[in-house]
């Protein structure tokens, strides 16, 4: 192999490693560390309750 071939090979290696590093960092940045189980845990619930329903039911025949 000539010196020029070695240079091309080293540049290609460098670019490959660079893109691998960039991709890996990007992947780390965009991937959430919260598990689906945790997400399920923090799902909001509605604390409001329509008391009128109970009143209406009370008026009905048992």
């Amino acid at each position, binding site marked *: 192999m000539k010196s020029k071939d070695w240079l091309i090979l*080293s*540049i290609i290696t*460098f670019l490959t490693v660079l893109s691998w590093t960039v991709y890996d*960092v990007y992947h780390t940045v965009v991937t959430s560390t919260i598990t689906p189980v945790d997400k399920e845990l923090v799902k909001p619930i509605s604390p409001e309750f329509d008391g009128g329903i109970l009143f209406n039911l009370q008026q009905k*025949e048992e």
Partner: protein
Amino acid sequence: MFPIQINQANYTQRLKVFLQSEEIKAYTMAILSFFAISFFAVFAIKPTLTTFFSLRRQIQDYEEFDKQLEDKINMLLKAQEQYQLYKNNTFLLSQALPTEPQFTYLIKKIEKISEETKTELSRLEINEVDFINSPDKTKSTEDLSNTKLQSENRDYQSFGFQTEINGSYQDSETFLKRLMNTRRIISLLSLKMGKGDLETGGEKIIIEVEGETYFLKK
């Protein structure tokens, strides 16, 4: 050993001459630099950067998670307050939507209403209850898949019933009103009216009621 020493000397000499060329020096420096950077990128820079961004992401995620968890705790506290407020009346909900089908309760209730409204209960049928969500055979394939999907998504299950009563118009009306006014949720699916027993003066009417009631899935 001697011939090898000669070869090594020659080789060193040739290498020195080779490296004295400016072009070769430049190439060698560039190639070694690229390989060195690549090597350190793989074994030092990449792990460091990945760890750094991973930790930063974790901090962001857990801050957000902590906030959401706090909101959830506040909601649960509010829900608990509401529950304390209506605690004594929650049995009403169980009566409206029981956790069991409670067929006997429904039958007795219909019988009781019929007795109290002086209507004659000539027929009372309860449909089969499908506890494993098998589709209705009378429906088309598309309807079946829709029904099945809806049924799977719902938290409650239903079963139908048919009843036939015979009585005066007023009594039958009262029967229906009372049936619809029970705490247990009942949907009226169809209502058929016809002439009743003519031997009693022709004032009686026959009403066929088809309804549906519900219970919570376990």
